[in-house]
């Protein structure tokens, strides 16, 4: 289908026909079209329906500022709420117009997304005339330059116009400059790349649309994280709408946008047009549209004496458009002189708003410029320049010059010497423009800008209910006036009262207009009133794009030990402990968790089990003051530890609460190996470094993490001595020669090992440490004996709980002292001081009725209390709130005790041993008896085998 609205095909746009479907209708467009230009080319004027009022809406703008033409892409992948003006047409595209709300697809998104870091001396945002000139100047200095532009082709709005630079069409000049830049070794030109965030320390983020749907593994969109020495913002300007009756009808369009459709896309957005303007730039648009074949019926110019002249149409100066007629789309235009002019297109130009969004995000301050009736940059905090229309310079020659100067300044500020300036390009200046869709105010006759656009926002009326301010949110002048009438004085309040500026375009077109109308309504000065805050992102960015490749298995690192593959091969189920995967238990065929854990527990209590303990943190502490250092960190004494011996220790934070625990091994007079819990390995090393570096620099100590250097295997159970003896014929392993809490170097299964006699189960046990490369060999040698049962973290938890050993983080929660845990024995009374000691003396911390760690035995020995259940005094519950006495921290079924049991933190618990308490679980509270927290082998008879 050849469209009667298509005039020609622009060079450089290919011209390949593309089929697409919109609202169920098949159409054809051309490569290089946006969905909007293709729809206009097919004569489609009504594209969407307004959200609140259900009014028909057309295409109002030509790029990211579009408030109306919001569509849902249905194919190739459903994507909600895109602007038809920014969707590049592709073959097979299926889209529908929306009514204010999009629809998420429950199909998984097949596209890949990624991110990349980039660095440059100068980042230029916007490849319009100012941006190109800036990039060229900066690149000439030898600086590393990135030029990022959101359109498919360079030139900003040059392709929207008929202007020339150095005698060639602006678009051709722009692509030549961009190509030259792209060919230089230290310049990167990014097209289709929208810089959407400007953060502290010149960190900017951009999204590059790469037009792929997951093919070849290419990322569909890419986030650029750019750290720039200096930034040049050449972001152009947006044309400003005017509020008048029914200004939302399809057929009402920004003048610059209509000009873009005619010039860039070769599309006529209508047949007969009226122009409604407050400035000169619309005359250039009228001229271009006229030469493209649109009949210009009249130019309605609000100024009494317009600076621009054009004899192609009647000029109604000093008049305004009072409304439009038509059933849906525009068919006529009413003018204040009483005339009703037949037209299917009304071009509107209320002036230009510099695009200061990124500048605002960067913390820059704005000022109101009377000359252009808008806000422009005043002062910046970050290392940036603003060039061209973004700071209110609207003529093409002005933009070229301003851009070149800004580029040179930026390069110099980044430490490069800018080369002598290129001779300034000669611009045609017949209505020149910059990136975005900006335009100038130069008049046709070449006269200076004698008559700047006036600030004109609103056509006065007695009824403002169809004077739209924010088209997407259906906010009218009447709504704004109602807000100010309710007493509101701040534009932020009016925004919230009316929702103006909160839609998809985030008020790109409506923002300044709203401020102006509020100012008008309350008789305030718009300069004082200001704008609402500019926030990232400049344009909407999809969640998936921002998530990048940090998804699925790569969402967060999976940390594994050197034995991990063995665990997987042997059917282990895993527990996430921080980033680590730890074997939880090893079910045999037909076993559930309870059966597997009871079996593993029995194996350790009756024969021998082995657990991968490699995830425990390990820190090598060396230096003459190492013992003194550990004395200050741990609550107990470490300096008295003998070489060859091991001690359990607890660390507190300065507030006296338990922070971590583990064993300390004395390797030499001046060397210790400290173990930490799995979750706290990094935190404990940081903690040590913090105290050493910031408080005790005179201590001669060095700390080095060796967590992953060692594979650690816990070998536990009455049979462990025999297994070890069989594999390590060297040292004597009898209880006298190798006593509890000592360590030996030995060869185990031919592997150099450090063997520690420690136990976290109460059984005779060893911890065998070998170089992690040899971990699997050791593990397999142990299992090759046929005597060893592998066990996981669940069994480890049961065994230690039977012995009343607390787990930091499970039986503690940051509010528990060593004394609360019944560990007075681990708190040195002799040491002068250690971290946390002072806090024990605070009144609340010294209270006798603090929560103590105790054991619980349910009256029904088969009843397993849920971990997290609470305890109360009485079997009958009063009305809530019922004060809790504490909660169950650990609860298990014990093979060794032949019953269930639990550990709990209970208020004054040690004084309650023998008491009956109750656990309300809904229904009858469950009776339990408080016991000492050590339930199994309280005499410690089993640890020597």
């Amino acid at each position: 289908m050849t469209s009667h609205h298509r005039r020609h095909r622009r060079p450089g746009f290919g011209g390949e026909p593309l089929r697409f479907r919109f609202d169920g209708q098949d159409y054809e467009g051309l490569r290089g079209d946006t969905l909007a230009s293709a729809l206009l080319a097919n004569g489609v004027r009504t594209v969407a329906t307004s959200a609140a009022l259900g009014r028909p809406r057309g295409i109002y703008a030509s790029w990211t500022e579009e408030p109306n033409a919001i569509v849902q892409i249905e194919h190739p992948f459903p994507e909600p709420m895109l602007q038809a003006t920014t969707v590049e047409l592709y073959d097979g595209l299926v889209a529908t117009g929306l009514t204010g709300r999009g629809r998420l697809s429950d199909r998984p998104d097949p596209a890949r997304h990624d991110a990349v870091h980039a660095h440059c001396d100068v980042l230029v945002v916007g490849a319009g005339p100012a941006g190109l000139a800036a990039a060229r100047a900066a690149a000439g200095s030898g600086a590393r330059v990135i030029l990022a532009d959101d359109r498919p082709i360079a030139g900003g709005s040059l392709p929207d116009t008929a202007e020339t630079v150095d005698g060639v069409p602006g678009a051709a000049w722009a692509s030549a400059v961009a190509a030259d830049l792209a060919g230089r070794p230290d310049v990167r030109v990014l097209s289709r790349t929208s810089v959407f965030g400007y953060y502290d320390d010149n960190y900017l983020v951009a999204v590059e649309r790469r037009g792929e749907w997951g093919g070849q593994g290419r990322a569909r969109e890419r986030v650029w994280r750019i750290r720039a020495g200096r930034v040049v913002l050449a972001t152009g300007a947006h044309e400003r709408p005017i509020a008048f009756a029914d200004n939302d009808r399809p057929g009402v369009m920004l003048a610059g946008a209509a000009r873009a459709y005619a010039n860039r896309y070769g599309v006529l957005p209508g047949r007969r047009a009226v122009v409604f303007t407050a400035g000169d730039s619309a005359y250039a648009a009228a001229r271009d549209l006229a030469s493209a074949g649109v009949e210009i019926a009249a130019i309605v110019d609000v100024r009494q004496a317009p600076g621009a002249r054009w004899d192609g149409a009647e000029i109604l100066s000093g008049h305004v458009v009072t409304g439009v007629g038509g059933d849906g789309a525009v068919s006529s235009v009413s003018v204040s002189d009483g005339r009703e002019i037949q037209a299917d297109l009304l071009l509107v130009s209320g002036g230009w708003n510099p695009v200061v969004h990124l500048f605002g995000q960067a913390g820059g301050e704005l000022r109101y410029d009377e000359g252009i009736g808008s806000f422009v940059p005043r002062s910046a905090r970050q290392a940036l320049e603003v060039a061209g229309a973004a700071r209110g310079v609207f003529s093409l020659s002005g933009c070229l010059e301003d851009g070149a100067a800004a580029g040179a300044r930026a390069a110099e500020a980044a430490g490069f010497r800018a080369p002598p300036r290129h001779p300034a390009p000669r611009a045609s200046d017949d209505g020149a423009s910059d990136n975005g869709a900006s335009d100038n105010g130069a008049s046709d006759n070449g006269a200076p800008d004698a008559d700047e656009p006036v600030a004109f926002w609103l056509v006065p009326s007695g009824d403002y209910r169809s004077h739209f301010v924010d088209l997407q949110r259906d906010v009218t002048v009447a709504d704004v006036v109602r807000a100010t009438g309710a007493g509101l004085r701040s534009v932020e309040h009016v925004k919230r009262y009316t929702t103006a500026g909160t839609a998809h375009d985030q008020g790109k077109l409506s923002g300044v207009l709203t401020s102006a109308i509020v100012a008008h309504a309350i008789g305030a000065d718009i300069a004082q009133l200001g704008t609402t805050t500019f926030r990232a992102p400049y344009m909407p960015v999809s969640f998936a794009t921002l998530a990048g490749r940090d998804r699925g298995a790569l969402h967060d690192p999976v940390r594994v030990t050197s034995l991990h593959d063995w665990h997987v091969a042997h059917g282990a189920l895993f527990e996430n402990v921080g980033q680590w995967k730890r074997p939880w238990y090893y079910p045999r065929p037909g076993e559930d968790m309870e059966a597997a854990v009871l079996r593993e527990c029995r194996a350790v209590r009756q024969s021998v089990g082995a657990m991968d303990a490699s995830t425990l943190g390990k820190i090598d502490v060396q230096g003459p003051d190492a013992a003194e250092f550990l004395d200050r960190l741990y609550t107990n004494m470490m300096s008295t530890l003998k070489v060859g011996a091991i001690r359990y220790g607890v660390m507190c934070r300065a507030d006296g609460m338990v922070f971590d625990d583990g064993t300390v091994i004395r390797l030499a007079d001046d060397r210790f190996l400290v173990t930490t819990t799995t979750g706290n390995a990094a935190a404990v090393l940081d903690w040590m470094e913090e105290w050493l570096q910031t408080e005790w620099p005179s201590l001669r100590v060095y700390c080095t993490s060796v967590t992953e250097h060692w594979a650690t295997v816990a070998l536990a159970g009455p049979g462990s001595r025999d297994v070890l003896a069989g594999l390590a014929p060297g040292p004597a392993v009898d209880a006298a020669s190798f006593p509890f809490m000592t360590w030996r170097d030995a060869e185990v299964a031919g592997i150099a090992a450090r063997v520690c006699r420690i136990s976290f189960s109460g059984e005779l046990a060893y911890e065998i440490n070998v170089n992690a490369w040899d971990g699997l060999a050791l593990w397999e040698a142990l299992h090759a004996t046929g005597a060893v049962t592998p066990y996981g973290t669940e069994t480890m938890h049961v065994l230690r709980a039977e012995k009343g050993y607390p787990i930091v983080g499970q039986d503690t929660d940051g509010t528990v002292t060593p004394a609360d845990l019944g560990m007075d024995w681990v708190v040195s009374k002799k040491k002068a001081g250690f971290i946390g000691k002072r806090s024990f003396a605070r009144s609340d911390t010294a209270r006798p009725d603090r929560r103590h760690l105790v054991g619980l035995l349910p009256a029904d020995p088969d009843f397993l209390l849920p971990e997290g259940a609470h305890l109360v005094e009485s079997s009958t519950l009063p009305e809530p709130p019922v004060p809790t006495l504490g909660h169950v921290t650990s609860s298990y079924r014990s093979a060794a005790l032949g019953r269930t049991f639990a550990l709990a933190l209970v208020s004054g618990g040690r004084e309650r041993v023998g008491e009956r308490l109750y656990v309300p679980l809904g229904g009858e509270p469950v009776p339990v008896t408080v016991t000492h927290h050590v339930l199994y082998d309280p005499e410690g008879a089993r640890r020597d085998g």
Partner: protein
Amino acid sequence: MRDFPEHPDWLWSSPQPKRSYDVVIVGGGGHGLATAYYLAKNHGITDVAVLERGWLAGGNMARNTTIIRSNYLWDESAGIYEHALKLWEGLEEDLGYPILFSRRGVLNLAHSLQDVRESVRRVHANRLNGIDAEWLGPEEVKEVCPIVNVSPGVRYPVLGATYQPRAGIAKHDYVAWGYARAAAAMGVHLVENCEVTGIEVTGGRVRAVETAQGRIAAGTVALCAAGHSSVVGAMAGVKLPLQSHPLQALVSELLEPVHPTVVMSNAVHVYVSQAHKGELVMGAGIDAYNSYRQRGAFHIIERQMSAALELFPIFARAHVLRTWGGVVDVSPDASPIVGPTPVENLYVNCGWGTGGFKATPGVGWCYAHTIAHGEPHPLNAPFSLERFTTGALVDEHGAAAVAH
């Protein structure tokens, strides 16, 4: 879609401040406005000015994710948040303003065995406190919120969740404006663009505030300055154990309903609801460093999106429309400080960190009581400054890493 209630035709006037008030409230956010309202309504104290340095409710009240729940761990916290929730349930009628309190339940997800233990502990604690709380397994989570990915294959699978059915969301501007309008109607002066620049203390007693609009004498001064509490407190020589951090949030475009409840996950760092009009409202993490800049760092947003898609694959092609940041004042135990100060007739209400919005009616009620009676209401008595000396902290850290 205009089934959305309109704001009333009249909200409040902007009076010139008088030279003297019985009570001056510093900070015109949700807490300040609610305090003024309950001072007038419950205690008949109407010679009150609320001084706001910018626009009313333009601080954290305008920047939060509007989640309302009371399922806190410790009895002290549960007490004040549950009191707030009960007030929320009748607030629309009380204020005569459509605050759009939507009871839709909140799920707090558990992703590790440790999460499960802590969650179950909280459920049981809540029940003893008369707070509705349930523990749900993954399949039940899916019933409440079908779009949550409960498959065991994800990096941190959903092992279950606590569920508080009475929890929900409200429209924050409507809440603030409802309080403002009702307070103004009872004679409270709401003064915008009136930054407090000094607090006059003589003889250990507060006398007046210096403001951008001149000196204003006050019988009592009540601070409600949220992220700026340290700055304002310092004007009276009161040092507070607070650190101010940026906290970000973001919103998507309007989408057809997919998300019926509120989902929070500490471990994966997500909290999200779909607001009344259809936008996804999502909170991000807190920036680690002190800052009064009302914006945070971008990598936190990227991380947030990664986490969100782990739990909600359906969000993949939703778009971030706007991000913003508030400044939250965080106390050492992640619990608030509400009560008297060493300066006579000077009161503080601060340290709400990330949890201030949901407490609004409750804290307004209790703080007004504290001001009116010169001593704390029983519900805010545990949240004294002295607890940092005695060690009787109300440590919600574990539960409140991302508590909103």
